[in-house]
C-alpha cells in the first residue's frame, strides 16, 4: 500500500504540475485549467503548475476585498473556500498524505538516514495560527492607502513557493536576480530550515505551519472517507503508534486532526483487523492483510 501511495503522490504531483513546456516558454502556464483548485499546497507561480493554489488565491481575494466591494463586485473568496471545503469534506487530511506535492517532498527528505526526532504536540497549533492570523486576518486588516493588501503567507513564509516558484523563476529568468532582497533571503532561510527539519522529523511543515493542512484538519472528523477503529477488536497494543508518520495515537483518537490516512497503521501495524476504512459510514476494508505479519519487521523509525 505504501508503494501505491507513493505512485498516487507522484501522479498528483504531475497532475498539478503538467506544464512541461516551461523550459521553452520561460514563464508560467496561463491556460484555462488554472481555474481549477489544487488539492494540495502547490504554488501557482510555479512554472509547471496547471492549477491554482487555494491558499494563495484566498489571500489575494481577501487582500482585494475592499476594492472589490467598492466596485460592487462580491468577491469574498466563496468559490475558493467552497472548493477547499468540498475537497476537505470528502477527504480531509487524506489529501496531505496522498496528493500534496510538498508533503511528498518532505517524506522523501525524511528517508535520508539521520537521527530522528519527534515534534512537540503544542507546535501543531501553529498551522491554525497561520490559517487564521496570516492567511485570513492579515490580508483583511493590514491594508495600504488604496485599501489593498498582500498574500502575507506567500510573501513572508511559504517554503513551497520558494522551492516551486522562486528558485525556478530565478533560473528561468536570470535578470530577476537583480531584484531579490531581504524578502527572498528570509524565505530561502525558512525553506532551508524546513528542509533540514524534514530530514530529522516527519512532515514538520504539514504539522506545524501549513494553513491548508490546518483547514483540512478542521474537517478531518467530518470527512466522507476516513479510517475507523473497531474498539471490540483493538487490543491497545499500541503498534499503530510506532508506524504513524504524524505521531497519531490512532487507538486513542481515531478522529485525530493530524491523521493523513496514509494507512500505515492499517497495513503495517494492526494484526487484529481493528482498523478499517469507511465511506460515509459504510465500511470498505479492514486491516486483514496485515494479519499474521511480524510487527517487528514492519515498524518504521519515528521520533
Amino acid at each position, binding site marked *: 500500500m505504501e508503494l501505491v501511495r507513493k505512485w498516487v503522490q507522484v501522479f498528483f504531483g504531475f497532475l498539478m504540475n503538467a506544464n512541461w513546456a516551461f523550459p521553452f516558454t520561460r514563464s508560467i*502556464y496561463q491556460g484555462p485549467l488554472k481555474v481549477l483548485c489544487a488539492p494540495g499546497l502547490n504554488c501557482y507561480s510555479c512554472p509547471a503548475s496547471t492549477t491554482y493554489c487555494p491558499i*494563495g488565491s484566498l489571500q489575494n*481575494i481577501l487582500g482585494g476585498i475592499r476594492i472589490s466591494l467598492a466596485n460592487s463586485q462580491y468577491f469574498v473568496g466563496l*468559490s475558493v473556500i467552497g472548493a477547499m471545503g468540498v475537497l476537505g469534506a470528502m477527504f480531509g487530511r487524506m489529501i496531505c498524505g496522498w496528493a500534496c506535492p510538498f508533503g511528498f517532498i518532505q517524506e522523501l527528505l525524511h528517508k535520508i538516514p539521520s537521527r530522528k526526532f519527534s515534534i512537540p504536540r503544542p507546535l501543531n497549533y501553529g498551522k491554525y495560527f497561520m490559517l487564521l492570523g496570516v492567511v485570513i486576518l492579515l490580508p483583511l486588516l493590514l491594508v495600504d492607502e488604496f485599501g489593498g493588501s498582500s498574500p502575507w503567507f*506567500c510573501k513572508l513564509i511559504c517554503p513551497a513557493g520558494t522551492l516551486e516558484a522562486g528558485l525556478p523563476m530565478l533560473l528561468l529568468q536570470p535578470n530577476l536576480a537583480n531584484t531579490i532582497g531581504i524578502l527572498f533571503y528570509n524565505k530561502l532561510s525558512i525553506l532551508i530550515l524546513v528542509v533540514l527539519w524534514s530530514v530529522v522529523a516527519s512532515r514538520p511543515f504539514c504539522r506545524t505551519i501549513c494553513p491548508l493542512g490546518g483547514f483540512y484538519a478542521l474537517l478531518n*472528523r*467530518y470527512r466522507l472517507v476516513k479510517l475507523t477503529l473497531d474498539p471490540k477488536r483493538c487490543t491497545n497494543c499500541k503498534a499503530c503508534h510506532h508506524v504513524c508518520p504524524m505521531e497519531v495515537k490512532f487507538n486513542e483518537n481515531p478522529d485525530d486532526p493530524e491523521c493523513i490516512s496514509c494507512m500505515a497503521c492499517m497495513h503495517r501495524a494492526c494484526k487484529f483487523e481493528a482498523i478499517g476504512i469507511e465511506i460515509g459510514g459504510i465500511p470498505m476494508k479492514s486491516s486483514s492483510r496485515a494479519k499474521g505479519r511480524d510487527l517487528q519487521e514492519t515498524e518504521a523509525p519515528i521520533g
Partner: protein
Amino acid sequence: MASEKKSEQYRIRKAPFIVLGFFVLLWIAGVAAGEPARVLEQAVQVCLSCIGIG
C-alpha cells in the same frame, strides 16, 4: 428485514454530507458572483513579490 439488518450494521454518517453540501453551496455562490474569473486572472500572472522576488 434485510435492509433493517444492513442499516444496523452500517450507520450512515450524515455529518459529511451536510458539510459537503454546505461547501458546495459556498462554491456555487462564489461561481455565481463571478469569482473564478478573478481567480484565473490572478493565477495566470507571476506574482513576484508573492514568491519573495521584486
